[in-house]
C-alpha cells in the first residue's frame, strides 16, 4: 500500500485536521470528527447535516460552508459514523429552525442516522435518504439502491434553499425532489485500497473493469473488457436515461472516483455530452471532477439531474465551501 499517511488508524482525524487548517472558515471537533461552519450555527436557518464513511473526499467535510452543509460527521474509512458523532454534528448545525439529515442509502448509514435522530431531543429533524445508483436493482426485499453522485448535487441545492431561509419541510421536500430526479451509474478501472486493509479490495486484470460500482471499493455488478471512453459513456448514460424523463434539461455530472485525472474526466464528459445531444437531452449545467470519491480507485461515474426552474436557480446560487465555490 502506497499512501501519504502516517498510521492507518489516524488517517481520518489527521485529514480532518488538515482540512480545517487549510480552511479557516471551517471548525473541526476532532473528538467527534465533525467539520462545521466556524460561523455556525446560523440562527433561524435550517441546519444541514450529512456524514458517512471517510474516503469520499471532498464529500462531506469539503462541502461544509455557506450555501451547503452546516456540519458533517466523518466515520472511519468506508464506515458510517456512529450516533454520537451525528448527534454532535446536529448540535453544531442547529440554529433553531430544525436540521435536515442527508443520508446516503447504506444499511449502516441509515441505522446510525436513525439512532442519532432518536437521541436528538429538542431538535426537529427531517431526513432525506439518497438512493440514485441505477447499478443496483431496486426491490422491496433488498437494502435498495446506494446513494452516490446525487448526494453532492442535493447538498448544494438544499443548502441554497436553507440559505433562503426556507423552512425545514420545504428544504426537505426540495432535497427529496433532487434525489427523485437524479440517477447515477459508475465504473471502476482499478480497486482502491482501504488503509487499514493494506491491499486493494479486489484484483482486476489489466484488460477488465468493474461496471456498476458504488463508492466503497466494492466490486460492481459485472466485470467487462476495458471499454473505450465512448463505450464507457454509453454504459454509464444509457441505464441512467432509461429511468429519467428530463424535460427541461439536465445537469450532467461526470465524477472521478479518486485516481482518475481530469484529462480523462473531461474526455469522458465530451462523450457523455455528445451522447446526450444525440438523445435530444439538453445539458444546461455541468460538473466535472472528483467530488464523491472512493479512496484511490480509478474510475468515473455519471449523474444526471433533471432540473426544473427552481432547482436550477438554487444550483446557481452562491456557495463557499472547499469543494464547491462560486459567487462568493
Amino acid at each position, binding site marked *: 500500500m502506497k499512501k501519504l499517511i502516517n498510521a492507518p488508524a489516524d488517517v481520518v482525524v489527521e485529514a480532518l485536521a488538515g482540512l480545517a487548517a487549510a480552511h479557516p472558515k471551517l471548525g473541526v471537533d476532532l473528538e467527534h470528527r465533525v467539520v462545521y461552519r466556524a460561523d455556525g450555527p446560523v440562527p433561524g436557518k435550517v441546519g444541514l447535516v450529512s456524514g458517512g464513511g471517510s474516503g469520499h473526499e471532498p464529500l462531506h467535510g469539503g462541502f461544509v460552508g455557506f450555501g451547503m452543509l452546516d456540519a458533517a460527521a466523518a466515520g*472511519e474509512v468506508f464506515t*458510517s459514523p*456512529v450516533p454520537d458523532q451525528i448527534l454532535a454534528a446536529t448540535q453544531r448545525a442547529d440554529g433553531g429552525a430544525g436540521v435536515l439529515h442527508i443520508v446516503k442509502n447504506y*444499511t449502516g448509514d441509515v441505522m446510525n442516522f436513525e439512532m442519532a435522530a432518536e437521541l436528538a431531543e429538542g431538535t426537529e429533524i427531517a431526513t432525506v435518504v439518497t438512493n440514485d445508483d441505477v447499478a443496483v436493482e431496486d426491490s422491496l426485499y433488498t437494502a435498495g439502491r446506494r446513494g452516490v453522485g446525487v448526494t453532492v448535487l442535493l447538498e448544494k441545492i438544499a443548502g441554497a434553499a436553507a440559505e433562503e431561509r426556507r423552512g425545514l419541510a420545504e428544504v426537505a421536500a426540495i432535497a427529496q425532489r433532487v434525489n427523485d430526479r437524479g440517477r447515477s451509474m459508475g465504473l471502476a478501472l482499478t480497486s482502491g485500497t482501504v488503509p487499514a486493509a493494506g491491499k486493494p*479490495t479486489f484484483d482486476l486484470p489489466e484488460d477488465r473493469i468493474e461496471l456498476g460500482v458504488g463508492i466503497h471499493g466494492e466490486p460492481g455488478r459485472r466485470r467487462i473488457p476495458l471499454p473505450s471512453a465512448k463505450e464507457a459513456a454509453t454504459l454509464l448514460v444509457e441505464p441512467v436515461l432509461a429511468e429519467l424523463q428530463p424535460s427541461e434539461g439536465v445537469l450532467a455530472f461526470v465524477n472521478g472516483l479518486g485516481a482518475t485525472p481530469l484529462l480523462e474526466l473531461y474526455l469522458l464528459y465530451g462523450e457523455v455530452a455528445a451522447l446526450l445531444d444525440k438523445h435530444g437531452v439538453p445539458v444546461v449545467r455541468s460538473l466535472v471532477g472528483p467530488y464523491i470519491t472512493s479512496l484511490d480507485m480509478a474510475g468515473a461515474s455519471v449523474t444526471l439531474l433533471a432540473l426544473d426552474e427552481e432547482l436550477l436557480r438554487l444550483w446557481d446560487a452562491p456557495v463557499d465551501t472547499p469543494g464547491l465555490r462560486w459567487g462568493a
Partner: protein
Amino acid sequence: MIEAWIREFARLVVAEAPRLTELDSAIGDADHGSNLSRGLTAVVAALDEGSFDDDAALLKKVGMVLVSTVGGASGPLYGTFFLRAAGALPGGVPSAFRAGVDGVAARGKSTTGEKTMLDALVPAVEALEAGKDWGEVLAAAEAGRDATVPLVARKGRASYLGERSAGHVDPGAASAALLVAAAASTLG
C-alpha cells in the same frame, strides 16, 4: 461468566480480524474486521475500567460501547444485540440471546436467508431454545454461517453485487459464529 464471554468474543474478533476483513473484501467494503476489532478493543477497555452492578449492566455497557465505536452496519446491529440482551438477561441466557437476535432483525429489517449475521444467529438461538448443549449450538451457528455461501445477499452491502454475492461466506455470519463460539467456551 458473562464477562468471560465478552472477553473471549473480543479475543476471537481481534485474532480473526484479518480474515473477517478478507471476507468483507470479497463482497463488501473490506472493513468488517477492523470495525469489530476497534469496537471490541474499546469494550475490553471499558470492562477493564468499569465495575458493573450486575451482568445486565455489563451487557448494556457493551452494547453502548459498540454503538458508539463501531459504526457501519455491524455497530448498530451488534450494539442492539447486546442492549436488548441486557434487558432480557434476568430471564436467563437463552432469552437474552433471543432478545438480542430479535433486536438485530428489527434494527436491520432483515430475516434469515438474506445472507447476513442472522443466518448464523437464528439457528444458534433456536438450538439454544430447544435445550441443545453449547457444542450443538455452536455447530448450528457454524452450519448457518457456511450455509450463507450459496446465498444471494439481499441486505447489507453484499446485496449490491446481486448474483455475484453467491459463493462467499457472509462476513457478519462469520463474526456471529465467533460470538457463539465465545459463548460455547465460556457459558457452557
